[in-house]
């Protein structure tokens, strides 16, 4: 299957929600990653046929979708807020799209509902009413209803955002397993980089209504075309440091200077923004590491990781991500080490026509392992 969006744009009352974008999606899992107000929901509503684009064309296997009645499109949509019919039990909630179609015999319908329920591990809850379910079970019911339709296009708009983190963890890996075995085109919108990486497939980065990059998920992660992609596709956001390359060394505003890594030797002298993901800022000396002294503003603890929010004069903020849970005193000075081999370089000289103009000019070497399922 091939789902093609050509120059799709959306404006409402002179306000641009989506700048014209072109995107080709095949069968499989596709992530739309972007912060709130990036345009993810606007794009998904257009994909679903719920909203008309202001410009452009959508085709599914070369058929113009705008000519197909919404009820004839094989589309399923799962929203952030779990939506179920409160007066129907779980079985009937899942069965409802099939009942509307009215093509199946009772036995076939039962089999389909049970298969979808089993995939979402709610087969033991079929007789319950939605109000008797936990949030996670309600969202599983809504997803099972989307799965039961055998839709060509399955759209999920931040489906896990309203669940607590333990449920999110479980459902995420379940969803990856389910979707990787389906023929359908699955589009999954999220604000969380970690979720995109867990789901795999392709990732499309959206920000303020613009498509910034599209490609295989790990490739986008390791080769962010723009500074903004690096920020969006890192949690915590990629650290950004202004630096001047002069006399064969990078000079930071803090007065520190160091040699560029091998991947950066071809860069011309001038101003750059250097990007460094938080897990490449270390408290342990690294060979060739750039040593800085920083003040600790807060240690955030995620449960298995510690994020140190650091400050350097003049006005440089950095986040370091450490494995494990550690306690540090607030306000203390720490020696930190930047790994120059892991730096990204973005230019500061591209044309000023858009606000996303800081282009990637050098990035760390990385290898994809090219692993396939056993």
């Amino acid at each position, binding site marked *: 299957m091939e789902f093609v969006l050509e120059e799709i744009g959306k404006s409402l009352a002179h306000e641009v929600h989506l700048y014209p974008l072109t995107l080709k999606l095949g069968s499989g899992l596709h992530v739309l990653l972007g912060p709130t107000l990036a345009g993810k929901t606007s794009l998904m509503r257009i994909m679903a046929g719920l909203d008309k684009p202001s410009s452009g064309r959508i085709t599914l296997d070369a058929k113009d979708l705008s000519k197909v009645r919404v009820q004839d499109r094989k589309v399923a949509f799962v929203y952030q807020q779990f939506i179920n019919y409160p007066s129907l039990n779980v079985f009937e909630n899942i069965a409802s799209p099939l009942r509307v179609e009215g093509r199946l015999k009772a036995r076939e319908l039962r089999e389909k509902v049970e298969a979808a329920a089993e995939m979402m591990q709610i087969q033991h809850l079929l007789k319950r009413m939605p109000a008797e379910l936990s949030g996670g079970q309600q969202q599983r019911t809504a997803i099972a209803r989307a799965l039961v339709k055998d839709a060509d296009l399955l759209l999920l708009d931040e489906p896990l955002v309203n669940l607590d983190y333990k449920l999110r963890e479980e459902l995420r890996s379940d969803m990856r397993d389910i979707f990787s075995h389906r023929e359908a085109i699955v589009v999954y919108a999220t604000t969380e980089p970690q979720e995109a990486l867990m789901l795999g497939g392709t990732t499309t980065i959206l920000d303020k209504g613009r498509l910034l990059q599209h490609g295989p998920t790990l490739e986008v992660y390791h080769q962010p075309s723009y500074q903004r992609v690096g920020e969006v596709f890192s949690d915590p956001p990629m650290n950004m440091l202004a630096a001047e390359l002069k006399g064969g060394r990078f000079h930071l505003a803090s007065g520190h200077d160091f040699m560029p890594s091998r991947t950066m030797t071809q860069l011309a002298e001038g101003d750059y923004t250097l990007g460094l993901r938080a897990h490449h800022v270390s408290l342990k000396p690294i060979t060739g590491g750039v040593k800085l002294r920083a003040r600790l503003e807060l240690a955030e603890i995620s449960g298995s990781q510690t994020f140190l929010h650091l400050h350097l004069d003049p006005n440089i903020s950095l986040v370091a991500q450490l494995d494990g*849970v550690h306690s540090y005193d*607030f306000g203390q000075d720490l020696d930190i080490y930047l790994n120059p081999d892991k730096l990204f370089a973005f230019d500061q000289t591209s044309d000023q026509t858009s606000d996303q103009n800081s282009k990637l000019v050098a990035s760390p070497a990385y290898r994809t392992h090219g692993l396939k399922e056993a």
Partner: protein
Amino acid sequence: MAEIRLDNIAHSYVTKPKSAQDYALKPMQLTWQDGGAYALLGPSGCGKTTLLNIISGLIKPSQGRLLFNGLDLTEASPEHRNIAQVFQFPVIYDTMSVFDNLAFPLRNRGVKATEVRKRVEEVAELLELSKDLNLRARGLSADVKQKISLGRGLVRSDVAAILFDEPLTVIDPHLKWLLRSKLKQIHQQYKLTLIYVTHDQIEALTFADQVVVMFEGEVVQTGTPQELFETPAHTFVGYFIGSPGMNLLPCELHQDGLYLGGQELALADEVFEKLRRQVGGGGWLELGIRPEFLNYSPQPVMNALRAHTEHIEDLGNFKMLHCHLENKPNLRLKVKVSEDRPANLGAAWLSFPKSWTKFYLDKQRIALEGL
């Protein structure tokens, strides 16, 4: 500020509780020390809100005593307990200015005008609200309103404790860490007794010096964030803290050794003897080890267990291996491997470092320290 002690407190919403299941809160002993920053962490339905309501006086416990600095306040009404509370959603007067909102709890208690001004300005300074003091509260953004709510909780200097009930729910994710750092800074400066209720591990672990983890109406562990991560006292803590949580596997203790899925796990003699004493000769235990602490090798390694890698999640800065023990597809383990280390599907060898391998009997950790 005060020390708050829960002496054998329990609560049931049923009039005549018969079994342990009828209790939302099972009998507990708990002391919140004066000046401590505590978090009360647990999933929904674990009893944390019931406990909070007992402290604030909204619920009278079915049994036990509540002591503030040794004084029995079990029967005292909420207003006689001298507790400030900050809720999930902003509780402020929309028509009043920010200044008047912050001043309200003080004026209400007849504090002198000069003192009111001093305290309000101090709190506004702390929360970076100084420039907003003359604005009307209506029309301010949700996070500014919630900051005012926090300020109203902090403004009285005479409270016994301040209770926060999921106070950052309405705050934009990007601003949360700023407010968390503010609260932490305020605690360090003023040494208030703060109790922070949440289901979110980041909030709890970041905010608190001591985290009280609740599960099914019981306190299953009280400890520092590091203790909860490194030495969970209960299997629930192992599961709940960390993403993903601790690997937990059934293992069997025999006369001659400890077995996991039919493979013997080499143990130091003294550890083996201690486990045997605890289990009474032989029987089933649970082994717990975090994905971060397992050592993975794609080649055979001495004293490692044979396993099989089914799936590798490449998460950018690390890889998460989904493994199971050899020939035991139900004995699954997650293993975290750093980005620069090789990992393959198929045969794997997993080593269990002694200090990170924990054992649990009836969900409680068997202490092996000092062995």
